[in-house]
């Protein structure tokens, strides 16, 4: 019997799709596999071992870089999510008003300019401020990260707000709730999944950043990604694979959580 004619099928498409998925995962799987290599090489397999995870965990420089990455990401994600929530409240559920388009463009600007361009512009400005003020702490990195995290935090919060109508808030106001109470008891709880999603996106984006960090950081302020970038210039041991694997696991965990969070909403 002839196979039923499937109008959706296109010859070869499924094969190419499988090749694509293979190509997408082959490098990542290789990278993770060699993190468990007992030998010193990232090309020759010499048996299973966790020694590189141990050595990465005991490496002071790695510890400090990881801690720095986390501090920056926590600050940047918290601040950007807070201001993005406010901005989202200010730009949704309203008739178009003068300046609304301007606000959209402004908030999304960090997505539109190539990162390297923002990076050198920040280098120019911050290097001068560093000379003027003598301050060269993490503040610059936190400020830069906060700025480019804002659009990522803003998008899911805005999407969530657009799906909410004003009925409940009006009802609260009718029952003599103050605007602040209405916000605390009504708006914020309904908005929470959007805010959590925005925070997680901002956190991952901050954690992953290489380019802007590389140009803004002062001496001895390596984050985990810039540390890895520096290491790639030398002879690479599986220690880098081990660090990358842990990093990868963390990102995947956050993205998976984000995925399920969004799915529940739908």
């Amino acid at each position, binding site marked *: 019997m002839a196979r039923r004619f499937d109008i959706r099928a296109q010859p070869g498409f499924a094969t190419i799709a499988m090749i694509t998925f293979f190509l997408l995962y082959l490098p990542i799987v290789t990278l993770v596999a060699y993190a468990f290599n007992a030998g010193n090489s990232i090309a020759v397999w010499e048996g299973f071992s966790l020694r590189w995870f141990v050595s990465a965990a005991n490496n002071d420089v790695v510890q400090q870089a990881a801690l720095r990455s986390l501090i920056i990401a926590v600050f940047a994600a918290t601040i950007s999510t807070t201001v*993005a929530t406010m901005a989202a409240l200010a730009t949704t559920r309203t008739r178009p008003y003068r300046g609304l388009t301007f606000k959209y463009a402004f908030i999304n600007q960090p997505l539109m300019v190539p990162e390297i361009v923002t990076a050198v512009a920040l280098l120019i400005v911050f290097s001068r401020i560093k000379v003027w003020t003598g301050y060269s702490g993490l503040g610059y990195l936190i400020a830069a990260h906060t700025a480019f995290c804002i659009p990522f935090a803003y998008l899911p919060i805005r999407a969530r707000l657009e799906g909410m109508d004003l009925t409940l808030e009006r009802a609260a106001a009718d029952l003599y709730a103050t605007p602040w109470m209405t916000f605390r008891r009504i708006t914020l709880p309904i908005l929470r999944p959007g805010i959590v999603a925005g925070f997680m996106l901002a956190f991952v984006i901050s954690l992953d950043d290489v380019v802007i960090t590389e140009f803004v950081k002062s001496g001895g302020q390596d984050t985990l990604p810039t540390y890895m970038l520096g290491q790639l210039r030398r002879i690479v041991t599986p220690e880098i694979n081990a660090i990358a694997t842990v990093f990868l696991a963390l990102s995947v965990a956050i993205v998976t959580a984000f995925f399920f969070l969004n799915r529940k909403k739908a």
Partner: protein
Amino acid sequence: MASAQESARIAEREDIRNRWLLSAPALVIIFLAAIGPLFIMLAYSFMAKGDYGDVKFGQFSLDGWFSVFLQRDIFDDTVSLADAHLTIFWRSVRLSLMTTFVTLVLGFPTAYFIATRPQNRREVWLFLVTIPFWTNLLIRTFAMQEVIRNEGILNTALMMLGVIKSPIQILYTDTAIMFGMVYVYLPLMVLPLYAAMEKLDFRLVEAGYDLYAGRFQVLRRLIIPLVKPGIIAGSILVFIPSLGAYVTPRVLGGGKNMMLGNLIELQFGQGRNWPLGAAISITLMVVVMTALLIYVRGAARAGTDNNG
């Protein structure tokens, strides 16, 4: 009546004022740590370069912009095209176009494959595309480096299959950069393509077959025109970051095969020519913004066409 109107107008004005206050923190942060510095960089591009990097503050000069495409002979002052820069410009454009093309060739069937799965399976396939997208770009580039290096999986596999006798040098070539960018930006092509294909009305495809169109004809005359907005969106989303790529060419190009991002870095590092670096940055930004603007205009027009 008039006073009711009056108070409504006052309430609206107050609402708009509150909305500005509410969005002010976000706008101020973006201005201070993203947009403002771009204007300062524009000013820097018109200053004379300092002897050890930085600029001679307030000293006007067009040398930075002059050197973007031109160079002056140090002996006889003749002006000629800056070949080194043009090579890098051309490499950036060429590699970005090739990357866009390859991601389209791989991404189109992939997105189509996902869009034609049963509803409940699509999410899983889509999730598989998103995971690499959200993992660190540097890590993905590094992973690609391990695959294509001389002792890497690719060369080992080819040698075992007997296709080649000795490893081919891929790492630190233009090809390596392109492989890396294809790998890194592929999800950016698949996602908008999928979004367009998900909405595809397969009754039209059925009608095509009823009218004796072949598979290829249906693809070329029906599916591709219908998902064209997705193709354009995906191409723009891949082309733009490719043009401004910095990490991938640095890691896979190995310093010699520079792209624009690396040329910019060079001017702020060893090159010690900040005005030139600023001028190249602004050139790159203008090219990217123009591409985006053309795309947004086109998307807006396509949107009104569909609705009206």
